[in-house]
């Protein structure tokens, strides 16, 4: 990431990305021809309500779509076309160069192994010639970097011995140990209490600052995305409704759907009665 000509190219360039599920009545498109870029070191927020296709978009980038889903279009990551990679090659990219953080850390961690073993083994699977001892040290360092106190002792604990927020830190430690170029976080704080959410968002910001990794934040929460992202993609029912810098989209939304969404967000610091919806009541 040092050469200047590389810096001009986006880290991620998505063109015509479509995800479809074949059904008896023909293919149902859940992601419809998306075009967007993520700049190097940038933070892109993909926002939408349920059914918008935002999570399918992240899974499509990771090559982790459910069985039967058809992906078309181009996903260029650091100059390489991901859609052309074989599964084995994609596995090398996944976790190593692109890491993912999910909503529910408990379901992403194996309850039978200590968190240290899981971080270390994930690391060893991507780095040849690393000893167990070295990997363990990497795990402890990664846990220290996500501010897990007493990491040298906690490394031998099992997932159930951590709180929800601490488990999410463990997941982030696991992604960090790989020093990825891109972190995709899919609703990473949705299951967390608000005070813990604030800590995890601070942590993600700190990691971006320290490592220069790009971030894609998938979320339904417009307040969260406004604090994290510098660029926004708004999705609805598989379509890209609007995109632009976060400031432009929040200050001057062009699409009626984006305006409706922004109107509907309850504000903690705003007067009551401003809660508006485009239709007075739900579709009848």
């Amino acid at each position, binding site marked *: 990431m040092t050469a200047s000509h590389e810096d001009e190219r986006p880290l991620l360039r998505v063109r015509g990305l479509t995800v479809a599920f074949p059904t008896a009545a023909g293919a149902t498109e859940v992601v419809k021809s998306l075009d967007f870029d993520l700049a190097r070191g940038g933070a892109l927020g993909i926002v939408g*309500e349920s059914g918008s296709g935002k999570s399918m978009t992240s899974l499509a980038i990771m090559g982790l779509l459910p069985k039967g889903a058809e992906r078309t279009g181009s996903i260029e990551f650091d100059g390489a076309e991901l859609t052309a990679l074989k599964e084995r090659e994609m596995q090398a990219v996944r976790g190593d160069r692109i890491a993912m953080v999910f909503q529910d850390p408990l379901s992403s961690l194996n309850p039978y192994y200590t968190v240290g073993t899981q971080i270390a083994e994930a690391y060893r699977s991507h780095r040849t010639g690393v000893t167990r001892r070295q990997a363990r040290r990497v795990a402890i360092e990664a846990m220290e970097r996500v501010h897990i106190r007493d990491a040298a002792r906690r490394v031998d604990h099992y997932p159930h011995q951590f709180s929800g927020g601490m488990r999410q830190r463990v997941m982030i430690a696991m992604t960090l140990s790989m020093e990825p170029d891109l972190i995709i976080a899919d609703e990473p704080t949705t299951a967390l209490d608000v005070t813990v959410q604030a800590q995890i968002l601070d942590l993600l910001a700190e990691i971006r600052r320290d490592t220069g990794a790009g971030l894609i934040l998938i979320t339904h929460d417009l307040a969260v995305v406004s604090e994290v992202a510098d660029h926004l993609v708004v999705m609805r029912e598989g379509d890209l409704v609007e995109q632009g810098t976060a400031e432009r989209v929040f200050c001057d939304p062009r699409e009626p759907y984006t305006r409706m*969404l922004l109107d509907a967000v309850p504000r903690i610091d705003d007067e*009551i009665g401003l809660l508006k919806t485009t239709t007075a009541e739900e579709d009848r």
Partner: protein
Amino acid sequence: MSDAAEPLLRATRLVKEFNVHGGGLLGRTAKLRAVDDVSLEVRAGETLALVGESGSGKSTTARLVARLVDLTSGDIEFAGRPVHALTGKALHAYRSEVQMVFQDPYSSLNPKHSVERIVTAPLVYQKRPVPGGARAFTKALMERVGLNPDHSARFPAQFSGGQAQRIGIARALAVAPKLIIADEAVSALDVSVQAQVINLLRRLQDEEGFSYLFIAHDLAVVRQIATRVAVMSEGRIVETGDRDQVFEEPRDPYTRKLLAAVPRIRPEWDAARRRNEAARLERERQEADR
């Protein structure tokens, strides 16, 4: 509302302990105090929001007040009479005056029952006549909560999440309760649907004059709906006050920490958006005039 007025609900020194089993064969049973000396009042026609993070005891408190779980100790008075020791018929009668709306509309609605059967169930259960007949009664209720009354024979799965929550609200309204306990009732909804349901809850309260005990973790939502706010942490209420006092001049350190952690859209962005929106509407008006 004067402080002298008798509250609709007065809960005094509520305690709820659960038995927690220790590890191992000889593990001893410990007691977990989920609700620890909680006192609160809900006045007629107001919305008391009970807020807190997970494990704070807010949902257990709601269930104690609804008499869905038994108290370890404490008193509950409803409309001036004690209800904490009610059993049998008297408890059923209390439960018709206090209704609950839950977070997940689908799991709280019987998937095999039509809207008509769901909405009239509280009356049928209490062997009360359904005013005007089940069909007409259901249609009228559906209309009031913003659902298409022609869909009264449909099943929960045929509705969206927001519509299903409206069915849950209609069911709560069926017995004309004095108090509705809403436990994270809008938390699982998409933001646009959430706004509609919040507006619906406010409108229904304006029309009927009942009270809400509104359990929520989302402080921005609470700001839109509460008259007063009680903040819970680790089984205790740390602060109670009028909405604006709690949001603008929180007294307790935990309340301050909670408020500081809430993500917010930058006020200057919101201000710019309102200016741009006003300018856009003005442009559209001028174009229409031309």
